[in-house]
């Protein structure tokens, strides 16, 4: 029998309490961005040294997770793994919602958010940002069409085509996001082609982790908890991606460690970087990779109880990883005169300090809240939730 999909019913506390809470957080994020807009970025922790801060960590995380959240739908439509099909619609919704949240944060952090229209009408096509404007809006459109093919029975036969387009689009999108950093020649921590594939595997991992958390919560809201078999599948998927991220981090640092020019920045991140070193080893590697891998692969941890925990830790590790890449990469000074110590009134030659301020954190959290809000409202309006988690039809 085919899966039937239902909207999220019920008007009880289980729906409205999270709805109001998320709405309040999203509104607070909007208020924070307005506060930043009125006073200028002086009220953030961002400076002329660390020009991208907490909003960018959140925004990039959400954008990467958006691409990765589509994993489940892709597995079902593109790779014919029918066991994922019941969750394919939700996977598309979460992908769209996360991207909306991430874009909102990115746009509201602009120095002139009122000029968004300029960004949408005036392009420099050599800029990766300009490509990304098309890649991000295009992703929303492609996934919307993909969802339509899944929803409309007469269109179901096109699901595989739409899913394949979306799958390809994801890779290009995440390549674009990674290249924002990969193509920066100025800074020691960036300027590496590995950034693009590394961001792709990061998206696979973070997106799967976020999707697991949302799917578990949605299942609980709908009164249909995810079966153990589904959790075990998602868990194995996550384990694979977490290892891949770890591998890419290893490859990135090994390559840098081989090149004398990069020893300074490597020593900074891996040994002497204070908060960045701590975040790298404790959160990115420990909490974000090794502990989840143990939870996933050691038989003593059951899928039912420990999969959401592992996913939550991967999310924490992912945010930490992006913090190290984005903020740590800027905190380390530019190398204008190799072999020399440089000093000035403009913080040349010294590690830049950065302390995120409340408004920028609230803005970032607001983006996450907006993403979850869109998911919650979407589930209420359209039938995303399956009546059962088993589907034999495939495709």
């Amino acid at each position, binding site marked *: 029998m085919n899966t039937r999909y239902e909207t999220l019913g019920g008007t009880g506390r289980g729906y409205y309490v999270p709805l109001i809470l998320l709405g309040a957080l999203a509104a607070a994020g909007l208020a924070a961005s307005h506060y930043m807009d009125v006073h200028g970025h002086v009220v953030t922790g961002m400076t002329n040294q660390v020009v991208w801060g907490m909003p960018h960590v959140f925004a990039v995380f959400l954008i990467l997770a958006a691409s990765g959240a589509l994993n489940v739908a892709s597995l079902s439509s593109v790779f014919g793994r029918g066991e994922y099909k019941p969750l394919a619609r939700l996977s598309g919704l979460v992908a769209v919602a996360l991207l909306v949240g991430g874009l909102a944060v990115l746009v509201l952090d602009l120095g002139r958010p009122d000029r968004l229209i300029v960004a949408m009408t005036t392009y420099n096509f050599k*800029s990766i940002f300009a490509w990304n404007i098309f890649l991000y809006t295009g992703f929303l459109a492609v996934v919307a069409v993909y969802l339509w093919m899944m929803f409309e029975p007469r269109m179901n036969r096109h699901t595989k085509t739409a899913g394949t387009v979306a799958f390809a689009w994801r890779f290009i999108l995440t390549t674009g996001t990674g290249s924002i950093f990969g193509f920066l020649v100025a800074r020691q921590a960036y300027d590496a082609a590995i950034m693009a594939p590394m961001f792709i595997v990061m998206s696979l991992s973070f997106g799967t982790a976020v999707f697991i958390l949302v799917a578990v919560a949605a299942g609980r809201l709908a009164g249909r908890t995810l079966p153990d078999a589904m959790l075990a599948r998602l868990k194995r998927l996550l384990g694979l991606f977490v290892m891949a991220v770890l591998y890419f981090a290893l490859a990135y640092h090994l390559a840098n460690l081989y090149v004398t020019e990069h020893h300074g920045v490597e020593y900074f991140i891996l040994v002497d970087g204070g908060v960045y070193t701590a975040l790298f080893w404790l959160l990115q590697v420990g909490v974000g990779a090794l502990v989840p891998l143990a939870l996933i692969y050691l038989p003593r941890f059951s899928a039912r109880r420990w999969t959401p925990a592992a996913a939550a830790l991967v999310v924490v590790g992912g945010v930490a990883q992006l913090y190290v890449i984005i903020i740590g990469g800027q905190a380390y000074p530019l190398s204008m005169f190799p072999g020399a110590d440089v000093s000035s009134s403009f913080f040349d030659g010294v590690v830049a300090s950065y302390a995120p301020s409340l408004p920028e954190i609230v803005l970032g959290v607001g983006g996450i809240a907006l993403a979850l809000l869109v998911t919650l409202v979407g589930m209420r309006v359209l039938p995303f939730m399956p009546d059962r988690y088993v589907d034999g039809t495939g495709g």
Partner: protein
Amino acid sequence: MTESARLADRYRRRFLAAVGVGAVLGSGAIRLVELAAAKPDDQPVSGEVRWGMMIDTSKCAEGCTDCVDACNDEHGLDGFGRPQTDAQWIRKLEVRERATGKVTSLPMLCQHCEHPPCVDVCPTGASFRRADGIVLVNKHTCIGCRYCMMACPYKARSFVHENLTDQRPWSPRGKGTVESCTFCVHRIDRDARPACVEACSAAGHGAMVFGDLNDPDSDIARRAREVPSRQVRPDLDLNTGVRYEGI
């Protein structure tokens, strides 16, 4: 013949070719006098010119900030007493070579690259390179994303972090946009040298030479040809408009 006169001469020749001798003669003697002085107001800047700066670090004293002070005054970069977020268009660097202990003092500013990374990354094209080689931010289309600041290898750009009032009329700058050294484009278009160069030479240091790199007879082009000088981060092959002697 001074450099500006030579430049004006080139503009004049172009103008004559375009409009015809008769029209120019007909428009009166005042026009001709003005043409000989500077680029006419209604002529676009020319790609035949490449403005550049040569800095002789041997004449740049440690602790001297004459160029910096002149820039701050010219552009109204008063700051708010918040060094982390206050704008700096030109700053003094003390460079101490680790192997030898040799100390060099030099001003660092926008290097006005021929292939500027800031221009490459700017999503709206607000970061642009004028025909005469000056790299500018068009603040009318800058959305304040700061990608250019991530891309600049010289840390030459600042973001305006707070509300400004009473800007200099010739140097508009405002909250939420990125800015950097303009080579005093408003002065160049009025046939004067950048404020920093003016100040350095007025104080008798003479560490900064400004001029047209494309004009083989200009002081700067001759100097670049005859005296050893180099660009900062030459490995990036950006062909900077600012060059340094003695580093």
